[in-house]
């Protein structure tokens, strides 16, 4: 009961931010940070709970972004000289769902492959997948406009057509939408993790032979994790596309995957709050530093902070805080097994 009250309080606090923040640029930073947090939450399901490192996670984000953009804009494809396939523009809510669905289908494919290849090979498969998708987005100019980018993507709308409608041109409704989806992603991951499905994933991560010996189906749960994770990343991509309203092949850049991984690992992989804390820090930090330091100094501070966190809190911020809290409370719980920075990256 207490826990629920705190949760509702925190969500309300975040929901009230646009009312008192008063600076649209700050709100913009919070929106993009929120979108990244959704992506980090989705990555955490895979990296934190099943232990599979997807270094191509941005592919699902980008696929969600492109699919949603294309479905909402409509497109035509010259399939043969005489036949052109014309796709009429669809409403944004529908395109958004298409983006989630298509990203999830791609996740299903990658998940099926991940059954055959694990560890380093899984990492390579996911990196290659992201790179292939980026090249497709860059070179299939008929469909994606390539480096010219897809422009004028319609924003989200809310309401009953013909009666009352709100189009999300302003920052505030976008912020609340992102917040709502953050909460939804968090709830979905928490429900999974605190159920037999999540326990099966953790069991696979901790001791695969033992997990299979009690009947855990490896393929099934790895695929489930990738599908949910990819769909969620696709949702983040869709949010991004209809908020920024322009999408180009740069959404597939490797640096975005790295940012998600940093958020998850510094926050605490395999913890529910980890990606949120890590996401808030590494989403807001670069922007916060922009006002006080030159560009070189910004990145140096960013890098040093990251190294310090990984070095001193190898398990991440959230597990470190929980341990500290338990000790303060006087519990005699044994300390968590020591983990070196190298193990964390593996």
């Amino acid at each position, binding site marked *: 009961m207490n826990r629920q009250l705190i949760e509702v309080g925190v969500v309300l606090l975040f929901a009230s931010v646009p009312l008192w923040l008063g600076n649209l640029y700050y709100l913009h930073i919070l929106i993009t940070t929120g979108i990244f947090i959704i992506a980090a939450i989705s990555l955490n399901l895979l990296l934190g709970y099943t232990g599979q490192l997807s270094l191509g996670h941005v592919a699902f984000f980008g696929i969600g972004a492109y699919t949603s953009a294309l479905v909402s804009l409509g497109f035509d494809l010259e399939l043969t000289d005489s036949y052109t396939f014309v796709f009429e523009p669809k409403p944004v809510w529908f395109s958004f769902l298409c983006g989630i669905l298509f990203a999830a289908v791609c996740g299903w494919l990658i998940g099926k492959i991940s059954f055959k290849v694990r560890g380093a090979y899984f990492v390579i498969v996911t990196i290659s997948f992201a790179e292939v998708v980026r090249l497709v987005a860059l070179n299939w100019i008929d469909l994606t406009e390539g480096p010219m980018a897809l422009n004028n993507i319609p924003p989200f709308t809310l309401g009953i057509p013909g009666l009352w409608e709100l189009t999300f041109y302003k920052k505030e409704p976008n912020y609340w939408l992102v917040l709502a989806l953050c909460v939804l992603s968090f709830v979905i991951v928490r*429900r999974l993790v605190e159920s037999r499905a999540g326990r099966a994933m953790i069991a696979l991560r901790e*001791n695969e*032979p*033992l997990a299979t*010996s*009690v009947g855990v189906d490896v393929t099934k749960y790895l695929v489930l994790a990738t599908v*949910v994770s990819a769909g969620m990343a696709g949702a983040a991509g869709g949010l991004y596309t209809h908020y920024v309203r322009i999408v180009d092949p740069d959404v597939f850049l490797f640096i975005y995957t790295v940012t998600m991984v940093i958020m998850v690992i510094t926050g605490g992989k395999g913890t529910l709050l980890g990606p949120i804390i890590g996401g808030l820090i590494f989403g807001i930090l670069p922007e916060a530093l922009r006002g006080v330091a030159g560009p070189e100094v910004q990145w140096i501070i960013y890098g040093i902070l990251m190294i310090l966190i990984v070095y001193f809190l190898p398990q991440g911020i959230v597990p470190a805080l929980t341990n500290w809290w338990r000790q303060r409370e006087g519990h005699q719980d044994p300390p968590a097994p020591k983990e070196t920075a190298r193990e964390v990256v593996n």
Partner: protein
Amino acid sequence: MAGKANQDKALTVDGLTVKFGGLTAVDAMTFDVHEGEVLSLIGPNGAGKTTAFNAITGYLKPSGGNIAYREANLVGLNPNQIADLGVVRTFQKTSVFGGQTAFDNVLMGLHRRQKQTALEIIFGLPSVGSEEQTMREKAREVLDFVGLGARANELGSALPYGEQRLLEVAIALAAHPSLLLLDEPVSGMNPSETASFMDMLGEIRKLGITVLLVEHDMKMVMGVSDRVVVLNYGSIIANGSPAEIQKNPDVIRAYLGERHRKTKRGGRGKRRA
């Protein structure tokens, strides 16, 4: 009446052969485990006991032969499918979910008894919560059964060795086995721990669980087994009650003798690869 029921074959291993390259680890092994009995598989190190375990539970593909449990063919199935038939094993090397509490370890073992699908979980249906509650009670029961009730909140890796071995058994029991395969469950335990483990094995039997045991501790093997199968160099050299096995000259020479007649080992040792 009970004696007749005991003659029903639960597990049938027929001509099981496992080869690693040129080495034949298990050679045409044939034996049955009857419903409700405790059968021990013994033999010197390298005799092929663990290899046979791995083949039965799907961790490695046999080169030949058949394995059937209650008329279902086990060859070619994945370990988790074999577990779904009620055949659950423990491992020779201590194997628990180290980063989880003892309680969560057992909850993970209960996987097979839970039925919710991913969609039900994501939508948070009320049935999910009530089943979760039942499972938590079950987990507590299983922990109490093996005597780790007081250790529920300790991390698996933080438990002393003997208790980790008990936790392993708890995880396996949680998976609701009808045939339990124990791979050297008391290795590394002290005599009093071993004695209480033997008592627990008796309790497990009372639950109607058939047990296939691999063990080096002869006192335990002779104390708990209905029958003993002796392996040497991948082949079965004897099969009978503990009393018969203890008198069998081949067994004494191959296995029991090693401890008592150390001087005669020289010539035989060379055949081991």
